[in-house]
């Protein structure tokens, strides 16, 4: 082609790119909202503050906005994503380092649109994709609650994103592709509790954020794939729809008890990220927790266990034969708590096979609970398990897991267990 032709194509390309850039900037640009003086906590109606507190428990806000050993809402908690580590921000009403200078409008925009006061786009690790559906009154209640917390000066560590993902305006593109908020509309055919549960679950409690699979750009899969299982903090969040692998039905009563106490005696204790979730639900309004239970029991109404709870065979001899080292490790390290006659079993704690991990499609949760143990989820007293990460090496953990699955599990034997244990250690750090 002739040089003028090349030049013309180049000019057109540059102009087009420039236009795209301008268009992109136009889409991405959000103006800053002016700072306000930190509102006087006394101006907020105590009833509104209490309502906001309840919503914050349901939304589990404090789990991402409090560092280990830090103060509530002061931020600093690392959220690991495939794109890097994002640190939860300080959402106390400190003017300099928190959201003390945010107006109600700025707060609303953050919740609904994922845009900060200064106009920067927020990473969807902050689940505004869900909070977009929170009703106005509820957003205002949350604002009232946060503005009446102690104002704490705390600067979280800087995010560590894989370049160029630290460039926030790129998020506008992500939003263009994946952020299409729909309001949650009540279904008149369902009960008030069901509707309340769906509203809370789909917005504030953002359950799909962990329990749904995600696409390549970390967008939650919706439609048929909603609640089909996902990942959080190195743990697997099993399906909580018709594909729930639980071997005991998740009735409203059992879910309600699990949410409020961190334990379902027909299943197991809340482990991993569900620990903090139940910690906060235990402190939320009981009627709201019951509503959540109502909705998710409905979500799992067609799960296999909802129709028929299978017998749970104990293939002890077979498992010992196939995995003799696993059997020996179990006898010395696990049996003291998990076998009949152990004090906790005599006291009525659920037997191992009742818990969902041994019946999931992958061994991750079984591995993690062995590596990390379990702290009492909702109160200082409660189910407790020590961590075995330092006592057992990858191969030994794999042996125990293989033994357990052979003895109690469902489905085909998990392959490559030793590799899975190594991966679990890494991801759970």
């Amino acid at each position, binding site marked *: 082609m002739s040089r003028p032709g090349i030049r013309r194509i180049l000019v057109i390309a540059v102009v087009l790119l420039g236009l795209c850039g301008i268009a992109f900037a136009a889409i991405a640009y959000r103006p800053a909202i002016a700072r306000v003086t930190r509102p006087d906590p006394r101006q907020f109606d105590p009833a509104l503050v209490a309502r906001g507190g309840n919503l914050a428990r349901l939304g589990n806000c404090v789990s991402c906005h409090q560092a280990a050993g830090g103060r509530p809402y002061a931020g600093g908690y690392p959220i690991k994503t495939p794109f890097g580590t994002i640190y939860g921000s300080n959402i106390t009403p400190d003017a300099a380092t928190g959201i003390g200078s945010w107006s109600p409008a700025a707060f609303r925009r953050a919740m609904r649109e994922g845009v900060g006061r200064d106009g920067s786009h927020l990473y969807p690790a902050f689940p505004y994709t869900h909070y977009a559906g929170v009703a106005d009154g509820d957003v205002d209640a949350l604002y009232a609650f946060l503005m009446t917390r102690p104002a704490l000066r705390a600067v979280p560590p800087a995010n560590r994103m894989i370049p160029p993902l630290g460039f926030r305006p790129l998020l506008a593109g992500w939003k263009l592709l994946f952020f299409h908020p729909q309001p949650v509309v009540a279904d008149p055919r369902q009960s008030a509790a069901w509707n309340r549960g769906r509203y809370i679950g789909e917005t504030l409690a953002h359950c799909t954020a962990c329990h749904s699979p995600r696409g390549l750009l970390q967008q939650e899969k919706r439609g048929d794939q909603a609640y089909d299982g996902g990942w959080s903090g190195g743990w697997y969040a099993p399906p909580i729809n018709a594909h729930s692998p639980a071997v005991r039905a998740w009735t409203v009563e059992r879910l309600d008890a699990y949410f409020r106490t961190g334990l379902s005696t027909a299943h197991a204790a809340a482990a991993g990220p569900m620990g903090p979730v139940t910690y906060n639900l235990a*402190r939320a309004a009981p009627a709201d927790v019951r509503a959540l239970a109502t909705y998710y029991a409905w979500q799992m109404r067609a799960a296999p266990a909802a129709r028929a709870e299978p017998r749970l065979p104990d293939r002890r001899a077979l498992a010992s034969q196939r995995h003799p080292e696993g059997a020996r490790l179990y006898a010395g390290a696990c049996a003291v708590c998990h076998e009949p*006659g152990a004090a906790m079993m*005599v006291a009525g704690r659920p037997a191992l096979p009742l818990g969902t991990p041994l019946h999931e499609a992958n061994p991750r949760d079984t591995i993690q609970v062995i590596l990390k143990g379990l702290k009492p989820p909702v109160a200082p007293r409660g189910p407790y398990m020590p961590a075995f990460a330092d006592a057992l090496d990858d191969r030994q953990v794999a042996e125990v897991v293989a033994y357990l699955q052979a003895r109690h599990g469902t489905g085909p034997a998990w392959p490559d267990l030793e590799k899975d244990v190594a991966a679990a250690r890494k991801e759970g750090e």
Partner: protein
Amino acid sequence: MSGQASRRDILGGLLVAFALAPTAALAQTGGGEGSGGPPTVAPDLPGTLAKFPDLDAWIRIGADGRVTVFTGKVELGTGVKTAMAQLAADELDVAIGRVDLITADTALTPNEGVTAGSQTLEQSGTAIANAAACVRLLLAEIAAARWGVAATTLFTRDGVVLDGQGRRASYAELAASTSLAVRARADVPRKPVAARRLIGRPVPRVDLPAKLTGLPSYVQDMRLPDMVHARVLRGPSSGTRLTPDLAALRRQPGVARVVQVGRFAAIVGPREWPLEQALRVANQGAWTRDAAVPALPPMPAGLLEMRRESSVIDTRRDASAAPGVRRLSARYDRPYLMHGAIGPSCAVALMAEGQLTVWTHSQGVEPLRTAIAELVAMPADRVRCVHREGAGCYGHNGADDVAGDAALIARAMPGVPVRLQWSREQEHGWEPLGPAMLAQIDATLDASGRIVDWRHQVWSNTHSTRPVAAGDLLAGVEVVPPFAPTPPKPIPQPNGGGDRNAIPLYRFANQSIVSHFLPDMPVRVSALRGLGAHLNIFALESAIDELAAAAGRDPVAFRLAHLDDPRAAEVIRRAAARFGWNRYRPRPNRGRGFAFARYKNHGAYCAVALDVERIPDEGRLIVHRAVVAVDSGEAVNPDGIRNQVEGGLLQSLSWTAYEAAGHDGTRRTDYDWSGYPILRFADVPHSVVVEVADRPGTPFLGTGECAQGPTAAALANALAAATGVRTRSMPLAGGLATRS
């Protein structure tokens, strides 16, 4: 130290021994817990010398110059072994490394009853110090007679008597020439303060090097030749009965034998691990509720409904007092609390040649021996109980029961040493708990803000079911026919049980203190460190703060205004000053709290100031600073005192803020630490400072239990200041509100 300094020790100067406070009347052995103990035969002698006046009951000097000191008290982790070695070594003038201390052994030591009530130094320490001073004088007098000089011209150093001109005689040689089976003398003075080398110094604990490097130090570490291990079979909780399948257990690998006596059953074998597994098999057996144990009503209100025996333990009337214008009426309570020893109880027993020896961490080997002798139907002089340390017990825990269990097994296996270890779950299920208690305080202020009327009522079970007979041991109730338990009795003032420290040290014009003794025990209870003082001081000192607030007075000044005990005033001022009480800046969610008590009103003085923050939305407590001032009288080892007070403060923070033993009406529900969490490092204060008053030459006042009460109240007062809300029920940090 120069010879001149020693020469200043006046020997035989017939200085009248300093007058001790009249503690003989107050010094019930073990603070009134357990049996009464042997009679007083020499009322002119101090401490337990009054009951065992002969010097050789306390001190022997060997041919090698080593000094053996005998005490009927025991080391529980309080450091008294070191303190008593200091007293003996200093008063005798020997190096502390030459002193061997033998603690309670029914075959070897004076019967000093139970080591409890913070009376070890007062009773045994006083006896040992004076006995040592007597022995030193005696040996010097022998040398003086031998050399034809006056004893006042001689001095002693490091186990040798010297005349300063070259003549010397070792204690060993002098002791060999005489007998120490002579009565102590009441008029022998203790060493002057200026001459002391050890007393009053923070001498390092003599037992720590071994404990910190793994040398066998505890009853749990004992390994005798041909020793077998054992595990006892019981239901999951006091109030339950297990029906194990003994035939199946006999067939379990590693179970060499099952010992059964009536309903008592234990498995025995050469190794521990198979027994642990067999124990788990046994625990799959059915258990039933013990019908003899009454159901537990909801607490604490249930205490008010129980059968009671009420008595007025103190009363004062002053009709001329100003009329009351403001009234406080408040109820304070605490739940059942665990001792919670880190090491579950353990005992070793051996029946050999018609003699039963039990090695036990019981606080009272003498009454335990009596109980075990009755249990195994042997004469008491054929049963020997020897104290070996266990983990800290903080009162009457499972130590005595496990000793009884081991004795029964050993009797069935003559010639074989038996080591019986309770499991963690058994300790949680069966150890006697500290009683739940409730106090009602009604007080009135006059127009000038002075308290003019004070009424304190307290409801409580007994605080001692320490065994004195076989029926007080768990095994004693399981054999057939069972022995009957000793009926519970209140511990009388001036020590008290549930009413310990219910009588205020403050001066109120009018007061009435009533103790409601509750004899029925739906929950197995006994002495927990401090006994009633924990709840009574919690109540008393919380009420004082509430009244101070009503009167618009500073809490510290308010206390001082009602006290006329100068030593009390001094610890209060000292704690407040060190804390910076008057400089404290209030901050949101953070407050300061103060409290004071004199333990039993005749023990140690202790004032506590706390700076506490409560994190909203979490309910977490942060103790930023704790400052304590304590006056225990003469401080033998000031670091030992500091250690005990720090420990008592932290333990009380745990009890008061976090602890409550669970019970579902029929049985206990906490079977391990996950059900009964205690203070962990994350919740430990940022800083603790303890200031120890030293008052040489004054009586020992004890230390081990003085901090629990004031700490509980100081915490309540600090939280009230921090949150604006007054909590009167322990645990203060509470759990979730119960949702049904």
